[in-house]
């Protein structure tokens, strides 16, 4: 797998060094510009993401952003020390995909970069695959590690509801409403019973996780 190219535009030497190191250790190829200038088409080939500090001397970060967005759709993560709303709103309007306010932890930065680079999981509508789990929506069939699993209608709908957003916690309330079609508080306990049965049927490696105070999640293996 080729390393994804990240362009970092940051004038502070210490911060720039840290970010470049962290991204490098995380497996990214980093190009670091210590001063702001417009990004020309051929400057950084195969550019996957731009991390742009808004408070650059000389060229104003917003100008770089505006100039870049006129020509390219590459994701831009903006770093800002300002707690000014107008700045953030302007950056987002000019086409920034996300912003981070300083200070931030290295893990936070990496998560945000990865979240920006995460591509939507390509799957056919009628077939959902999450880890060892394989759900055939059209045929109402579920396979776990190649083994066919017999599910009731409610269990199947519960599983597909979770599988539509793998790695994302779904509230019990939402599941009760959308799977059981009931808004009664007691229906959440009914839901728990259904989940319990579903887990049993999926076996010891069931990817259904309980999320504290929220509900359930289908482990995607990549979502922390």
């Amino acid at each position, binding site marked *: 797998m080729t390393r994804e190219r990240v362009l970092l535009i940051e004038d502070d030497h210490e911060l720039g060094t840290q970010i470049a190191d962290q991204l490098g250790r995380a497996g990214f190829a980093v190009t670091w510009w210590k001063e702001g200038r417009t990004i020309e088409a051929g400057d950084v080939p195969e550019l996957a993401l731009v991390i742009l500090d808004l408070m650059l001397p000389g060229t104003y970060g917003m100008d770089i952003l505006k100039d870049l967005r006129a020509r390219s759709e590459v994701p831009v993560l903006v770093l800002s020390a300002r*707690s*000014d*709303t*107008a700045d*953030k*709103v302007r950056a987002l309007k000019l086409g920034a995909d*996300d912003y*981070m*306010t300083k*200070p*931030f*932890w*290295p*893990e*936070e930065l990496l*998560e*945000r970069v990865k*979240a920006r680079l995460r591509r939507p999981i390509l799957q056919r509508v009628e077939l959902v695959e999450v880890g060892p789990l394989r759900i055939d929506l059209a045929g109402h069939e579920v396979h776990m590690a190649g083994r066919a699993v017999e599910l009731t209608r409610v269990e199947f709908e519960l599983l597909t509801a979770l599988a*539509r*957003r793998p790695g*994302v*916690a*779904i*509230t019990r*309330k*939402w599941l009760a409403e959308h799977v059981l079609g009931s808004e009664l508080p007691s229906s959440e306990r009914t839901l728990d019973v259904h989940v319990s049965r579903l887990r049993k049927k999926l076996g010891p490696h069931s990817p259904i996780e309980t*999320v*504290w*105070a*929220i*509900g359930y999640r289908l482990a995607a293996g990549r979502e*922390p």
Partner: protein
Amino acid sequence: MKLRLRLALTTLAVAVPMLLGVWIADAVSRHRAAEVALAEFTRMHMLGRGRERCEADPDAWGGEMPRPPGPGPGELERGPPRSDDDAPRGPPPAGPREHAGPREHAGPREHGDRPRHGGRVAPPQLYAYDPELHAANPAAPLVPAELAARLGDDELATWPWAWWSPEVEVLVRMPWDTGPCAVVLARGTTVPGWLGAILPATSTWLVPLFALFAVVLAAMGPIVRRIRRLTAEVRRSAATGYASPVALSGRDELAELARAFAEAGQTVRAELAEKDRREQALRRFLADTTHDVMIPLTVLQGHLSALRERAGAGQALELPTLIAAMDEAHYIAALVHNLALAARLDAGALQLQRGPVDLCALVERVVMRHRPIARQHAVSLERATPEAPIFADADVTLLEQAVSNLVYNAIRHHRSDGHVALILDSHDAGAHFRVRVVDDGPGIPADELARIAERGVRGNEARTRAPEGQGLGLDIVHRVAALHGYSLHLQASEFGGLQVDLAGPCAGP
């Protein structure tokens, strides 16, 4: 420029052109009257015995004619000469300005020696010409070509633009149009005075004019003195830092001005006091802020120093110390953000910059910000957001800081292996959003919870480092919710900790 001098100059600037205009009008009308009178005199004279005498001896007729007695040019209009002894005799006069007298043939007078008012005036001079304007009398002057041209077939020709001169010259055509005396050139003056038709004939009228001028200047005195007093009052007030009012008794415009000064002074004093108050508040805030930030920084330095010592001694790094150091750094960051926001809220200068805020993205950012520190404490931080995005019309900085404070409070007051969950969902068919932060930490005692719900967190209590007080963070949550008109509910969670709900209306993206 002093007021008086200014007034004097202004009066002069207005009076001089006005006087000049009146003087010109006077000269023009007087000249016009003299021309009419001279022409009339000429006609009457010729219709009397003038024609007879002229035609009897055209070679010698001409020169000064005796004029009827009387003062001023008005006399000329009155009628023809009644005397018979006005027959021209001897050589004609050399000029039009002669002292009137019994003599018809006097020597020429010097120019500039104008007849005075009340003095004798020069009689008019007449010269006769045939229809072709040729004179039989060799002493008669040539008819000026312009005057001849202006006569044409008219009965009377006068000079244009002659008003500035006291000399009057007209060319009169007689009722008969043959013979050597068909046209008569008459010369006279606008005697007796330089002024007279409109303005008084003597210049004594200038005396009351200048007297009036002097009176006006003198009348300025009290006004100028009052203005000086006002100036002194304003200076005195300024010397006391505008603490004493500008006082000037009376009911005139200057007293009014003094009162306006006094009112302006009050406004300025009030604004200065308000500025002072703000400046003091800012100074106090800076001092407090420095204090607030220095404590966790000192703790952080302590941790780093301890780590350095252990590393120097070749000992293994203590994980708890490292985590505590990270904790302090995270706390400082949150504190500085909160202090900056509190400063803006306190200054009352905060303008809500509302706009559509993607709440799912906001929740995502808050969770990502605090997850590193939650991990250090082995606190699980989970979030749930609906599949469809939810937007609110809010100030993204304030709202994010509020949610961030709720989450951070939940993490910070926690024991290890606890849970914090951040749940965003919508209610009432998508009309309202609700951000819920729930934890299974120690929670807040019921009585304190009621107190916080009632009054919020204020003053020094807000600045106290948690876990004892709920801290500045919760205070900011309260204020942000109030600013946005959102509801904020704190209650004990079903898991034993605290559950906070922040709810408000949704908005389109």
